[in-house]
């Protein structure tokens, strides 16, 4: 994360290297946004994290909300009250927020409101590859698509102005290769945040009962017509390259690949870059297309621009052939694009050779890496989830179906632990477990994390208790939102402003939701954790076991800060080489050298769970020598 003083530097004209997400945060500060809300999710997290670190000094309010719909509602409430607001989430977060988002387009807002949706083509760290540009079509709100960090920052300011002129929230759709790309960003002036507004009552506008909704739907359609005019003249929708041979229409990160591919293939192509992609500038696209015999639409994931361009071309350029994903399948609808993919599309379309023989490289690469062992992400050494999964595995004897959820603990599916049989979205572990339990007539385990519990598991838990489902819920509570970078949540009691809020205890919530059995255990006490979980599996009704132990990364960081040394586990001469520690437990600090099992002291974080796992008592804790 950049130094807070950098992000807050009131130095217009200076250029600094910023991550796309930091650039968006800077834009939010420059725009004088008063209220920022989020639920963290890769690749969006650093937007809010950057702001959380500086919120107090910047004079803006920032909160980690319990989930994306609440975050959206918080930001909407502020914008309805005349305070500029922003909300950031990953693409699937907008599914959670969709209920509010859709009808918010009817009520609209009074001050600017920016909704950042960070899509993840290739699903680097997501459960799907959905293309959220379709949410703009679905809802009717205007949408911007930046292609690099500088544009991302600039578009925050532009988006808030658009939002204010249309009195609609503005969607900013980014992708991983914008959020997680660093580039030079030229700073603008900082506007002092306005934090105080006033809610002017207007029942017909803000209370969406049917009679009002019908009227507001009409208002939305009128706004969309106005938005189309803005799109035609938008500074972000323009021909950035003149050419005669071929027309290319593109947006977002795909634009970067287009510019490099056109150069690599030496194509005399005209390039229309679209930055405001909802509503689309029909006339601009139509007139551009009419200049060419062939137009290639280059975009990531769904043929969002392509389908609309085809229907626009029917009217404006009936003789022009439109290519992309649908026609001739020149570009894939899967995963992310690259310069190579665009080069190959141009090669196929124009019948010209590529400057690089990709087939040869790929063939050579396949041969060279044939026996390359994969290195997927694993749970860290000392991760409390490993201990929890070990206890769950021992207690269930692998005979029970375990649904799992979104977080680091999804890594529990890997060998040797292999806990997790179904995973779809935040909080789904509980509902799925209810259905599986009903359909299989057997007790089902739901594994869910602490932050996910607050986010989406509570309705599922109430449902389980109310409908008397036979499920056992394992809440893996590491007292942070670990996967996305250690954001606080209600269970930590710390807020986005870095001050104490009210701490909400999972066990109390579980009891209040009607669970028949609720216990809290320390997973580092393996025996107690295993016995408790066994007992929970026997309960007639809904049982909840909270495995509480802080994320080891936090423990290590704290120890380092305080100058304390964590103990280290050491394999003794009693080792029989049974490999239970490696083949059953699987801590990455273990390794084998010349047939002997050893623990890497640089990796060991001293959780001492392996000491309890070893059937021969051949691992002991030692104090770490001071350096």
């Amino acid at each position: 994360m950049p130094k807070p003083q950098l992000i807050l530097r009131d130095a217009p004209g200076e250029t600094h290297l910023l991550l796309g997400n930091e650039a968006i945060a800077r834009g939010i500060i420059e725009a004088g946004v008063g209220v920022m809300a989020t639920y963290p999710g890769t690749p969006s997290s650093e937007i809010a994290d950057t702001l959380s670190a500086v919120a107090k000094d910047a004079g803006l309010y920032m909160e980690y909300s319990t989930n994306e719909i609440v975050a959206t509602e918080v930001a909407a409430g502020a914008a309805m009250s005349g305070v500029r607001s922003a909300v950031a989430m990953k693409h699937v977060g907008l599914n959670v927020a969709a209920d509010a988002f859709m009808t918010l387009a009817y009520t609209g807002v009074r001050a600017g409101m920016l909704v950042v949706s960070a899509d993840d083509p290739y699903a680097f760290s997501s459960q799907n590859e959905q293309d959220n540009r379709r949410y703009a079509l679905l809802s009717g709100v205007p949408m911007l698509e930046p292609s690099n960090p500088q544009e991302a920052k600039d578009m925050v300011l532009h988006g808030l102005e658009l939002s204010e002129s249309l009195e609609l929230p503005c969607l900013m759709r980014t992708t991983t290769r914008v959020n997680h790309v660093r580039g030079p960003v030229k700073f603008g002036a900082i506007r002092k945040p306005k934090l105080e507004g006033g809610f002017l009552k207007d029942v017909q506008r803000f209370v969406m009962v049917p009679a009002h909704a019908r009227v507001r739907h009409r208002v939305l359609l009128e706004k969309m017509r106005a938005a189309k005019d803005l799109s035609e003249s938008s500074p972000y929708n323009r021909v950035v390259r003149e050419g005669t041979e071929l027309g290319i229409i593109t947006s977002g990160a795909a634009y970067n690949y287009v510019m490099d591919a056109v150069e690599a293939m030496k194509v005399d192509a005209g390039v229309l870059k679209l930055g405001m992609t909802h509503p689309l500038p029909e006339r601009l696209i139509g007139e551009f297309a009419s200049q060419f015999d062939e137009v290639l639409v280059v975009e990531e994931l769904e043929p969002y621009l392509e389908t609309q361009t085809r229907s626009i071309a029917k009217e404006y350029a009936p003789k022009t052939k439109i290519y992309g994903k649908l026609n001739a399948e020149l570009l894939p609808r899967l995963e992310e694009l690259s310069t190579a993919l665009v080069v190959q599309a141009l090669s196929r379309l124009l019948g010209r050779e590529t400057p690089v023989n990709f087939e040869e490289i790929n063939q050579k690469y396949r041969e060279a890496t044939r026996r390359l062992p994969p290195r997927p992400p694993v749970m860290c050494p000392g991760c409390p989830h490993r201990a929890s999964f070990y206890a769950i595995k021992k207690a269930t004897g692998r005979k029970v179906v375990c649904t799992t959820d979104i977080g680091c603990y999804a890594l529990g599916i890997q060998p040797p632990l292999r806990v997790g049989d179904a995973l779809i979205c935040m909080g789904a572990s509980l509902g799925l477990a209810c259905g599986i339990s009903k359909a299989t007539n057997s007790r089902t385990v739901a594994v869910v994390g602490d932050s996910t519990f607050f986010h989406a598991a509570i309705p599922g838990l109430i449902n389980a208790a109310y409908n008397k489902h036979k499920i056992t819920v394992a809440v893996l509570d590491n007292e942070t939102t670990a996967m996305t970078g250690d954001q606080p949540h209600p269970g930590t009691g710390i807020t986005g402003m870095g001050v104490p809020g009210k701490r909400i205890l999972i066990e109390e919530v579980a009891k209040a939701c009607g669970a028949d059995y609720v216990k809290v255990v320390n997973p580092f006490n393996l025996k107690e954790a295993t016995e408790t979980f066994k007992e929970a599996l026997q309960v007639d009704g809904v049982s909840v076991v909270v495995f509480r132990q802080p994320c080891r990364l936090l423990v290590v960081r704290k120890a380092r800060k305080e100058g304390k040394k964590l103990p280290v586990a050491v394999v003794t001469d009693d080792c029989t080489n049974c490999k239970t520690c490696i083949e059953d437990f699987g801590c990455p600090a273990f390794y084998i050298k010349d047939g002997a099992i050893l623990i890497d002291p640089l990796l060991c974080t001293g959780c001492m769970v392996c000491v309890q796992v070893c059937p021969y008592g051949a691992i002991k804790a030692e104090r770490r020598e001071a350096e």
Partner: protein
Amino acid sequence: MKTEIVVSGVGGQGVLLLAETLGTAAVLSGLDVRVSEIHGMAQRGGSVVCHIRMGEKIYSPTVMEGQADAIVALEPLEALRVIRYASEKTTVLMNTRPIAPAIVVMGAAKYPDMEVILDAIRRFTTDIIEVDAVEIAEKAGSPIAANMVMLGALASTGKLPTPKENVEKAIENLVPERYKEINIKAFQMGMEAAKKQST
């Protein structure tokens, strides 16, 4: 003129810091630059890859196959994993210290012999600089600074469009005060070590 670099390694080795340092050095040198990172799942001890492209004007944040001027690998297997970005013009700088993936530790796969890895790399380029970055970093004061040793090795190749002083300034900008000295020392020792090997 563009300079394209791929940095690879294992989560926790400081791949991201190395890449950010290069990006910062580029901005200090008045160049356009893109540094592409992958966060989240990749960081839990998994493979991590960063792309850095710098020059007058940069569009794509990622390197095209065969186009890297240099590959900096903090771990031998991870050098091979990104070798599709190499061609004869590429210098591969490789930290020779292996880290066994979980699957190898569990005995379900074998870590290839170093000669096998080098032979596979040689099919793409013969310009390989091997550095025992951990040993050098230990001499500089901490094994964690192996990433800065490799950055030094990269700087010694003359492939960077940024002066060495700007790389050092970038390190100073990014590294916490108490680790500055170790990191600068590791960077300089990495430069020396690579120079010796290439002459």
